[in-house]
Structures are given as C-alpha cells and as structure tokens.
C-alpha cells in the first residue's frame, strides 16, 4: 500500500465537523494547564525558600527534590503515577487528578528555580532597610522583597505556562480527552490526520500567542517603575544637580 502525497485530497471540512470535539479538548487542556500552573506557582514558593535556606539539610532536600523532578520524563511520570502508584497504594486517582499532580510536581521544580533567581536578584540592602525600620522577616518579604522579585519572575512564568499547555498534551495517554487526544480520536474516526493535527497545532499556537502578549502587558505594567529606575539611575546621578 503506497501513499502518494501529491494525490492527497484535502478535506478541511473535517475540522469543522469535529469542531466541538476540538473545542471541548481545548477547554480541558486549558483547565488542566490552569489548575496545574496555579498549584505549581503556590507550591514553588515554599520550595524556593527551602532551597535558599541557610540550613544545609533543608536546602539539600529541596535541591534533590528539584533535581529529581526535573530529570523525570513527564510521560514516564504520568504513566507511573496513573498506573503504577494507584496500583501499589490502592488510591483511587482519576486521570485528571493524576495528570494535574504530575504537571504540578514537575513544574513546581522549574518554578522554584525561577523564584529563587528572582529573589536572589533583589539587593540585600532592601531586606536590611525593611528590617531596620522594625518590619518582621515575613513582612519584609511580603511588602519589599516579593513585589520586586515578582516583576522579574513574570516573563519566565509566562513561558512556563505555555510549556505546561504543551505538556498537557501528554496527559492524553491516560485517557484524558484534552485537545491532543480529541484530535487523535477524531482522526481514528475520519482518517484525516493532516487536517485534524494541523487544527490542533494551530490551536496550541493561538493559545501561546494569546499568552505571550498578555504576559508582557502584565510585566510592563508591573515593571514600569523598575525599568525606569535602571535607565535613569546612572543618568540622574550625573546630570541632576541639587534640585531642591
């Protein structure tokens, strides 16, 4: 059986025919990504703080956790979690839960490193100034350190959100009808892989294209005062005389 690409008759109407399937898949993809990302963003903060702990045992534990989770291929992790762990522990975890757990755990490791880089970029003097006026450690963090680090963290956070959307396509292997799997099922019924996977690809691209400018908008708004600072700091010092 030979297949000559030049003979291929496109039938884009199949995409229209399965539009609700694809839409449903897209919504589930977004749901998985949003839930996992939110949880990962929360979980990553204590992880980053542990990693930065002065107690070597704590930072060691965090370091190992991060290294291990980043090393596991996500597909293996998902299969292990859904089929393996449930079998051994007897816990009933549905596909959605298993997928979210895996994405959350793995992305929390990535995000923890991003948080750490952001937090370490803040001058030590900021914390000292806050403490010197009597702020507690936690208030200094919440009011002074984190708002500044946050601005540094937003752009890599956005690219990780795009990453989590793409990686959620792997969750289809445990039977979750996200976008990728919906396209696959539609293909198995219609034998139109080119059209359907093209459609899936286009949807992934659109999602990414929506997120990037959204993130840079947030970033620009958040970083306005800071970016002004770096540009002006040197200039003002030279040119501005005694203005008062």
């Amino acid at each position, binding site marked *: 059986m030979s297949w000559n690409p030049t003979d291929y008759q496109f039938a884009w109407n199949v995409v229209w025919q399965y539009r609700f399937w694809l839409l449903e898949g897209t919504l589930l993809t977004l749901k998985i990504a949003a839930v996992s990302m939110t949880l990962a963003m929360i979980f990553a903060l204590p992880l980053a703080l542990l990693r930065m702990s002065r107690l070597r045992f704590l930072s060691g534990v965090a370091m190992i956790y991060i290294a291990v989770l980043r090393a596991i291929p996500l597909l293996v992790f998902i299969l292990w979690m859904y089929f393996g762990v449930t079998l051994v522990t007897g816990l009933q975890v549905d596909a959605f839960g298993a997928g979210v757990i895996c994405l959350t755990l793995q992305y929390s490791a990535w995000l923890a490193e991003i948080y750490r880089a952001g937090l370490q970029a803040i*001058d030590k003097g*900021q914390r000292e*100034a806050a403490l*010197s006026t009597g702020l*507690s450690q936690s208030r200094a963090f919440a009011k002074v350190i984190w708002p500044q680090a946050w601005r540094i963290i937003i752009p890599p956070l956005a690219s990780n959100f795009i990453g989590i959307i793409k990686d959620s396509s792997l969750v289809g292997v445990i039977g979750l009808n996200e976008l990728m799997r919906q396209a696959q099922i539609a293909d198995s019924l219609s034998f139109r892989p080119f059209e359907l996977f093209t459609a899936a690809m286009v949807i992934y691209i659109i999602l990414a294209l929506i997120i990037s400018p959204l993130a840079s908008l947030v970033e620009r708004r958040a970083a306005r005062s800071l970016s002004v600072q770096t540009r*002006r700091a040197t200039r003002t*010092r030279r040119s501005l005389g*005694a203005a008062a």
Partner: protein
Amino acid sequence: MDGSFTSVSADTQAGAGPLLELKEAHKSFGHVDVIKGVSLTVRKGEHVVIFGPSGGGKSTLLRMMNLLETPDSGTLTFEGKQYFPRMDSVLNRHRVLQQLRSQIGMVFQRFNLYPHLDALHNVTLSLTDVKRMSRKAARLKAEASLAEVGLKDRMDHYPSQLSGGQQQRVAIARALAMDPKVMLFDEPTSALDPELIGEVLGVMERLAREGMTMVVVTHEMGFARRVGDRLVFVSEGVIAESGGKEILSTPGEDRTKAFLEAVL
C-alpha cells in the same frame, strides 16, 4: 501627636544617661576577626562620629547597634534593657528585635529605598506595618517627615525619578518618621556626586542641632568637626582612639595621624 523631630530636643537636655551601650563586642566572618572587643556608649543627644580606614569594621560596628549584625559575644543595651544576648524563645526573639529596631533609625550608604514604591509609600510602609497607624495618620506623618527633608513636593516620585541626594533625603525621612531615639548613618554621602553631598549633610546637621542622638560613620571631616561631640577612630576592628574634636588636629595615635593625613 508630636510629628516633627523638633520635639526631640526637649527630652535631650533632660538627662545625658547612656542610651545605647555596646560592650566588649566581638564579631568574625569565617575566620576573619572583624570586630575585636569594642565598647561604645552613646548618650542621649550625643553625636558620635566614627571614622577610619576601609575594612576597619565601621559598618559592622554600626550594624551591631541595631543587631542587623549579631555579635559573636559582648552585650548590647538600649535604654537600660539588654537586647543581646537574650534568652528568648524564637518567637519572642523576633519581637524583641523588631522592638529595638523600630526605635533606631538607619540610613545606608546606598540609600536602599524601595524602588517599587513612591517616596510617600517608602515612608509610610513601616508606619502602617510596624506602628500600626491608620493609612491617613501614616500619610500625614510621612508628609511631615518628607517636608522636614525638603521633599514634600516629590512625594509621588519613585526613587528612580529622584537624584541621589533626594533619594538619601527620602531615606532619612523614612527613618525619621518612626520617631527614632537614635539615628545611625553609614557613610550616607559617599555614594553621592560631590555637588549633592551638601544637601544631605545639611539635613543631618539640622537634625543634630535639633537634638537628635546620632551615630555617623563618615569621611566628611568638615561635618565631623562641626557636628561631632565625640570622634571615634576605628581601625582593624578596635577603637584605636576616641575623644573630642581635638583628635582631628592633634591625634594621639600614629594610626589616626596617618589616616587623617591621607584623607585631608
């Protein structure tokens, strides 16, 4: 509410007892001894100027006074209460530290203003957070402090929109707004262009005249001569010499003499 720091002068005259007392302080980083047994008493209303060669331990000494740097040994007493060492539970220890620091203002060489907050909110943060003032009260208080340093019209400027001299004056206002009983300055003018130094020294001199207790690390010898009640020469982790203004013209120690010749 006694907003301005002019009120300080009144109780300054009253007593000249020790306000802040560091005794036999030692501190090392790794295996480098940075402070080797320093005792320093700051009396109410007194203006202590600390000077000495780079790396001599001036900043470390100053930072021990509000326990930003924890001594390895020695004692720190503030208003008769011992703040170091203490036998507190972990929770209490933080509260006691906060209590100490909220009464001691500190001004840094590199200003350390919060870049994400405008001048006003740089000042109000600790008022609402530490002093638990209402937003409105904090705002009034901060406006008064900023007015004292001549920056009332720059309240809505971010640090990035201010000159170095203005930034340092906001930093002074931030410390002042807490009504500190003593102000610590760590080389407040050495990150400034020469033409901006005057405006900051001017604010500090006025503070001094109004009776604020001050400990100032500086290489501005003119300021030291005008304002210093006691000059302390710190070198290699010890107080090599201390005394009145006369030690600037007739230093008793060779090290002091050598340093002054190099600076002047």
